[in-house]
């Protein structure tokens, strides 16, 4: 337990010392929020079913954070730890691999949560954002989405040979996903062909689930999203358990 707490605290410090990860998780989504605010304000529009742009943007930008922490932070940290022999050194101590992975998950999850809380705080203070969902439902959807995306990160870090390839693959997955999942702008604005492509983007299911729960839709209308994300999570756990090695 002591090593788990120390490890978690250490990983949290390292996360915040890494300017890239701290920026993309905590600052970058806020910049987007304020850009939306300056362009459209938060007046109710028919496009968002009578809600404002910012109301709709918060769950969507939360999905973006999940994509970034899952694909960028988790992948890069674990791939770097493996390639540089940091895991190798840990492997010579009695510490369990489970502790190393758990500390990583806890920290990335905490940072993702912090990113979302900053969005909500800014939305509340600056744009009087409306929230019509159930707090616990949104929390549940958020936890499921985050963990299933960390799973992708662990899979990439565990299966790709070098940090460089892991980085390239993560970026190739992340960028189209951010634009074609409805995270940055509504899918309704895109041609039907592209809407079909978005069905293959895991982030689409995060965007749908979080947006739905945020406005108070029941879980029963998001069974597909939950199914896809739970499947990804399961796959992530299975593959990570299989491929995790200290080197």
């Amino acid at each position, binding site marked *: 337990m002591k090593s788990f707490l*120390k*490890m978690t605290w250490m990983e949290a410090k390292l996360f915040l010392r*890494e300017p890239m990860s701290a920026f993309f998780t905590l600052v970058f989504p806020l910049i987007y929020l304020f850009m939306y605010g300056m362009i459209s304000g938060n007046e109710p529009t028919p496009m968002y079913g009578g809600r404002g742009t910012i109301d709709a943007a918060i769950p969507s930008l939360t999905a973006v954070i999940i994509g970034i922490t899952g694909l960028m932070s988790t992948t890069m940290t674990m791939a770097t730890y493996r390639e540089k022999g940091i895991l190798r050194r840990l492997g*010579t101590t009695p510490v369990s691999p489970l502790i190393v992975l758990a500390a990583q998950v806890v920290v990335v999850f905490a940072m993702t949560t912090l990113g979302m809380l900053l969005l909500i705080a800014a939305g509340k203070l600056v744009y009087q954002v409306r929230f019509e969902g159930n707090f616990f439902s949104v929390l549940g959807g958020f936890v499921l989405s985050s963990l299933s995306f960390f799973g992708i990160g662990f899979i990439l870090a565990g299966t790709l040979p070098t940090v460089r390839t892991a980085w390239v693959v993560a970026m190739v997955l992340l960028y189209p996903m951010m634009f074609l999942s409805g995270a940055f702008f509504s899918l309704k604005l895109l041609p039907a062909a592209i809407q079909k492509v978005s069905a293959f983007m895991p982030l689409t299911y995060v965007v749908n689930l979080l947006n739905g729960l945020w406005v108070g839709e029941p879980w029963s209308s998001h069974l597909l999203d939950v199914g896809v994300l739970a499947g990804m999570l399961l796959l992530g756990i299975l593959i990570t358990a299989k491929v995790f090695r200290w080197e």
Partner: protein
Amino acid sequence: MNPIVQVQGLRKTYGATVAVDEVSFDVKEGEIFGMVGPNGAGKTTTIECLEGLRKPDAGTLRVLGVDPQRESHILRERTGMQLQQSNLPDRMRVWEALDLYSSFYPKTADWKELLVQLGLEEKRNSPFAKLSGGQKQRLFIALALLPDPQLVFLDELTTGLDPQARHVIWDLVRDVRSKGKTVLLTTHFMEEAEQLCDRVAILDHGKIVALDTPAELIRSLGAEERIVFSVEGTLPSGFEKALSGGARVEVRGGQVTVRGKNGRKVPLVSEVVSLLTGQGIQFRDLRTEQPTLEDVFLSLTGRALRE
């Protein structure tokens, strides 16, 4: 004394390459035991099999009385390991690394004392990436000493360090032994093995070609002693004949090298000097060169060991 490490017929292959071929040796408690040889001789493979990091194809291994493969958790708790290729996160500070790693062991040495002992006190707040090569290695020694282990593995400890940093590390390793710990190290510097180790196994192509104390290895070679000096003008032609015991003379430019068997009745150096003074030959910069482990390696393998 009981052997703390026992190796019987260790064999490890990677595909068609035989990395370690029928290696056997014991390490006694309290000694610094070195495995020396060129890159690819099988040193690291051997040490990693002993650490439980690699699975041998054949052979019986006992480290602290246990099988390193089956009871690797015991070794992880009770030995210190410094690996050839390992790192810490760039932004982790020195004290944080020691503090974190301390939490992994049930019983540890005081890391604050280790910090002072290893001369890292001033660097306690430096991030890992900002440390010099020597400081990084000292930190890895500190991490290896954290579990207060009976046995410490050091793999290529001083590779890439400048001579000064290397000497600092040697002193630290001697300190470790003086505290009653056993050290098993690998190196490809013959000088390091000679200076530091109580016993040395010379490895080449996965086999042990010699194993003894450095002094005994050198003596067993029956190697030559060399006397080197400079003369002004030329050496009289009868000089070589005037020396006893078949000593040979080689002249290159103004530099003369006299080679003769070790352990003669009259030391070669006094014979050379008295002959020079007797014949009134002006000479300068006379020195004697003793054979080293490097010469032992050369004579055993027919190859020079390059750094």
